[in-house]
């Protein structure tokens, strides 16, 4: 489920709220440098699972979205993936 697929409408009535809701808890953001690039790490807990999102700072593009049983595990996965992607970035002489 999730994103509406191909513009197809959902069946049923126009009701809104359904099912269980949750909240992001222990939300934190911090900046780190990876291979010289500033990266923003946002992490939080949803239920029992920690989520982490890594973005490069200035352009703001998303690099990684990961989960873990601890914040450290989620962040490490995001940092690893971000490093993998950032290592491919070529810097040109201007």
């Amino acid at each position, binding site marked *: *489920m999730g994103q509406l697929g191909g513009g197809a409408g959902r069946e049923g009535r*126009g009701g*809104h709220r359904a099912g269980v809701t949750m909240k992001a808890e222990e939300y934190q953001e911090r900046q780190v440098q990876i291979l010289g690039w500033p990266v923003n790490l946002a992490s939080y807990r949803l239920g029992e699972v920690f989520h982490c999102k890594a973005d490069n700072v200035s352009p703001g593009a*998303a690099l990684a979205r990961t989960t873990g049983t601890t914040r450290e595990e989620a962040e490490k996965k995001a940092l690893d993936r971000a490093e993998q992607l950032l290592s491919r970035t070529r810097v040109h002489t201007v």
Partner: protein
Amino acid sequence: MANYAHPETLVSTDWVAQHASDPNVRVVEVDVDTKAYDEGHVPGALGWAWNSQLCDTVRRDILPKAQFEELMASSGISNNTTVVIYGDNNNWFAAWALWQMKIYGHKDVRLMNGGRKKWLSEGRELSKDAPKVSRASYKATGPDNFLRAFLPQVQAALEGGTSSMVDVRSPQEFTGEILAPPGLPETCQRGGHIPGARNIPWGKACNDDGTFKSADELRSLYGAEGIDGSKPVIAYCRIGERSSHTWFVLKYLLGLDKVTNYDGSWTEWGNLVGAPVEKGAAATARA
């Protein structure tokens, strides 16, 4: 809100918490990362994928009118629905969706100030359920191409010096040191910027919590680079989504009349044979 020219185009997270289940309000999440919606979203919000539902998937273009009408109808949006859009990266693709809705004449579409980040950081309710919606009837107008710049218009503006161009990418993309945001694939043959463009990265319009800066701060930011409404403005970035964010700021928060989003952006210009390209930092802002 902060003396904006069109405060009706922006709502707070509080407002959304209070109105998300109003029958005439439809909340929609549009993210850069299309998996974010599934992780949890504003209860009752729909999710639109920018890369499949908000563009023509065959040729490079925005959503064709008939498909736009179908997306609205299947999302339970009628012409009179108040649509509130939000998303990650301080509303990048939320602004892209709003821009398209304005092109097709939707009257009441707003951004949730601060986007997904603010909603999360405030510890507000999230749901994993996609809402069930009743199909609506929708008739689009337009397209209003006064909101959009195509290549010939940009070329004419460059030759005639008739418009101010704002490049909203990062300084390193602007100078040509990198050809895409770090970590993303290079999607152009040449780096640099359109000659004469001013570099005002999109993120400078935002506070740390993702909300927009005040009108005075924004006026000062853009005014310092000569973007004051005295000339039409063309905003561009790499593929047109970051520039739709700046387009929103200039048009609705500062109220500049003639602002267009050049969605062809650098992936078009930087691949053109023979197009003039300037490298390095911009010259001092012109008066």
